[in-house]
């Protein structure tokens, strides 16, 4: 875990930014998360230490896009690729965040960090230098869809940070793609601030290659009357952790989350979500699906926190899981913490395998077992994939998933 050694000594980081200094200071006393804490208890220790084994990649890496061409109207940005954008026209503007505002915002965020809960962010911010940080301020309407890439380079640890401010009444579609490479680690931290009446359709697609690792952390603050929709998909990572923290700062906001993680071989992918209702009339509809095959391990932990102030909250959380092999395992823990009494909150969880009766029905109609399984899986996946915005069809996500299985 050479990165941790480096953090402990602190000196080996050149030209530290103010943010880096603050985070390194916070990490110095206890550089690793507490393995007994609820958030890290199930995390595979050897895989986690493998994540930290690579040396930090500080160089610019040219990004060779193996991806579909984007349509003209889309905006495509790559974090770390000398990314500059300044688009202003009569309907909308997309501007780079000023350095001051960026630092001020991140400092505010850090002040409420918890060492265990936000460890991934602390690590990200202490490793990240300016060029791997993208801060945007978006306003207006009729904004073209945006695609943002974060990628890792082989045999290295990469840290990328994305910060986006959506100004009042702004409405956008944004697809974030995180790509792992052979033997690599990617730490991605994302911060969104949705101002009043803004709406964000957010897609997160993360997929890796052989032995790639990912720590993906997403922090969203929603002001009143904002709407945040998230469709996420994580697959093909040796070790991946997706942390979602959403705070409806004044209530009266809407959040929809549909996430999925697929694990095979001996992979471990986990999703942790924490939804904090800090005002009345909040709404949440969340579904998380997992599929675990071979010797893999899928984890979901979701918590919904409804303090006294959050009256009339309507929140539901569902965890659906498919366990396809004798050696795979699934852990799920949907949890509710409620103090307000005038609320509608529910959660549910199921773990099962493919429906045998449906399989049998299809087989009696001449469909092979493999085809029948694929059909069932495709309907299982489709609910999530259809929720991911921006050019999802071009990515052939469904094909990728089905051919993998």
């Amino acid at each position, binding site marked *: 875990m050479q990165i941790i050694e480096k953090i402990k000594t602190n000196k080996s980081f050149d030209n530290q930014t103010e943010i880096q200094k603050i985070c390194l200071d916070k990490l110095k006393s206890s550089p690793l998360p507490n393995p007994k804490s609820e958030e890290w208890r199930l995390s595979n220790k050897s895989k986690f230490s493998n994540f930290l084994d690579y040396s930090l990649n500080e160089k610019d890496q040219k990004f060779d896009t193996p991806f579909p061409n984007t349509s003209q109207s889309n905006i495509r940005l790559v974090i770390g690729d000398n990314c500059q954008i300044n688009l202003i026209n009569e309907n909308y503007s997309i501007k780079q965040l000023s350095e001051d505002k960026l630092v001020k915002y991140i400092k505010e965020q850090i002040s409420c960090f918890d060492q265990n809960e936000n460890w991934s962010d602390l690590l990200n911010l202490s490793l990240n230098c300016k060029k791997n940080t993208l801060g945007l301020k978006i306003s207006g309407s009729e904004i073209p869809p945006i695609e943002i890439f974060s990628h890792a380079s082989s045999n290295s640890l990469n840290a990328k940070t994305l910060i986006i401010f959506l100004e009042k009444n702004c409405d956008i579609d944004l697809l974030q793609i995180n790509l792992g490479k052979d033997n690599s680690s990617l730490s991605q931290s994302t911060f969104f601030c949705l101002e009043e009446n803004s709406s964000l359709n957010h897609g997160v697609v993360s997929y890796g290659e052989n032995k790639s690792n990912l720590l993906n952390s997403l922090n969203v603050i929603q002001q009143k009357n904002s709407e945040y929709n998230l469709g996420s998909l994580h697959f093909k990572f040796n070790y991946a952790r997706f942390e979602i923290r959403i705070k409806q700062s004044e209530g009266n906001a809407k959040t929809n989350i549909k996430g999925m993680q697929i694990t095979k071989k001996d992979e471990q992918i986990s999703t942790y979500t924490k939804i904090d209702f800090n005002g009345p009339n909040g709404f949440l509809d969340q579904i998380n699906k997992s599929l675990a095959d071979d010797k893999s391990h899928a984890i979901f932990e979701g918590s919904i926190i409804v303090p006294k102030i959050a*009256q009339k909250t309507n929140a539901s959380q569902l965890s659906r899981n498919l366990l396809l092999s004798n050696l795979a395992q699934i852990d799920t823990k949907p949890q*509710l913490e409620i103090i307000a009494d005038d609320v509608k909150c529910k959660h549910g969880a199921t773990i099962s395998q493919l429906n045998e009766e449906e399989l049998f029905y299809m087989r009696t109609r001449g469909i092979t077992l493999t085809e029948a399984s694929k059909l069932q899986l495709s309907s299982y996946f489709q609910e999530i994939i259809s929720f991911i915005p921006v050019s999802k069809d071009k990515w052939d996500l469904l094909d990728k998933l089905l051919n993998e299985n």
Partner: protein
Amino acid sequence: MVNENLVKDVVKEPYKYGFVTDIETEKIAKGLNENVIRLISQKKEEPEYLLDFRLKAFKKWQKMKEPDWAGLGYKQIDYQDIIYYSAPKQKEKISSLDEVDPKLLETFDKLGIPLTEQKKLTNVAVDAVFDSVSIATTFREELAEHGVIFCSISEAVKNHSDLIEKYLGTVVPASDNYFAALNSAVFSDGSFVYIPKGVTCPMDLSSYFRINSGDSGQFERTLIIAEESSSVSYLEGCTAPMFDTNTLHAAVVELIALDDASIKYSTVQNWYAGDEEGIGGIFNFVTKRGKCLGKRSKISWSQVETGSAITWKYPSCLLLGEESVGEFYSVALTNNLQQADTGTKMIHIGPKTKSTIVSKGISAGNSINSYRGLVKMGTKAKGSRNYSQCDSMLIGDQASANTFPYIKSQQPNSEIEHEASTCRISEDQLFYLQSRGIQFEEAVSMMVSGFCRDVFNQLPMEFAAEADKLLALKLEGSVG
């Protein structure tokens, strides 16, 4: 809001069992060390193996840390400030109930427990435990005719030593957790039940636990063994006087069900919960676990938890035998500053095992009521199923209701379903009932009763009546 205040008033029923019995007791000095354990063992004239068991448990306990994962807030317990043995003074051997101190009989009379002959009308055999010792067990002869052994655990140690040696600590090992280790080291009394092969116990068995002394802890241990094709229904009730100090209660209950056997264990827990400011009350740290060893065996826990300042209790089932069944039905009510962290563990080990969890939590006042459960499907639990449902009802906007279900599966050929919901007694519903001429209190009672029905339906007749009364008595009431 007028209605909300009324609901709160309704919930505030004073504790009826807070009296103290003035009786001469034999107590040992406060504190816990090896000598205290030897002394307890000596007082109970225990065989060597049991003393060994206690001492080993004590050594383990010394190395353990008090668990803090439940997030319960209570002042630190000073384990050296507790009396570990307290017994009412009476003649050494009691041959009949007539020799029991009338004051004790009177106490149990006041609690509504029929110990004396003329009151033994209900068809329930009772083992009454007062502080650290068992006072009396009724209907013993009748039970003996069927081969059923029902006595205090101290008697069982003397008379059925082979069974105790074979089974004690096999379900909850001494090192299981902090409080189980403490109990294993200092347990004083409790009940022992043995149902022989093929016998259906002719009557319900019942234990009644009474803490009388303010400075002594209660550490009872219950062991129930159901042999092949036998069945038994066991009821447990508890109360304590009102003291402004906290009393520790750390019990261990072990159930063993062999092939085709069935055990139904029902509890109405009504320990003193402390006053409105949260002063006093029992700290209830209990380890209850059943082992479905045999094929098609069944263990069913049902509980109504209304008392205690702190409740830390997770009655669990280890489902080892093929097609064995585990059930957990619970109603937990917290008020004022009570904290309850309760739930269950269903560990599916054998194939085709089934479990059902129904948990209803009602939180009022400033209380915290949490459901914490674990459902685990092991690699061999092929064809197993679990269904869990946990609902919470909030009364007032100061109480909190939490749900923490842990679900773990390692077997694709198994199914787990879990649902949870939260609701409250809404003004609309109350208004509807009141507009139909139903009194406010009755309306609240009806709604709470409806909310808890799934669980009350599972209680044995004797308790079901009590539980209903408990509701009618505005959520806090009597115990049978």
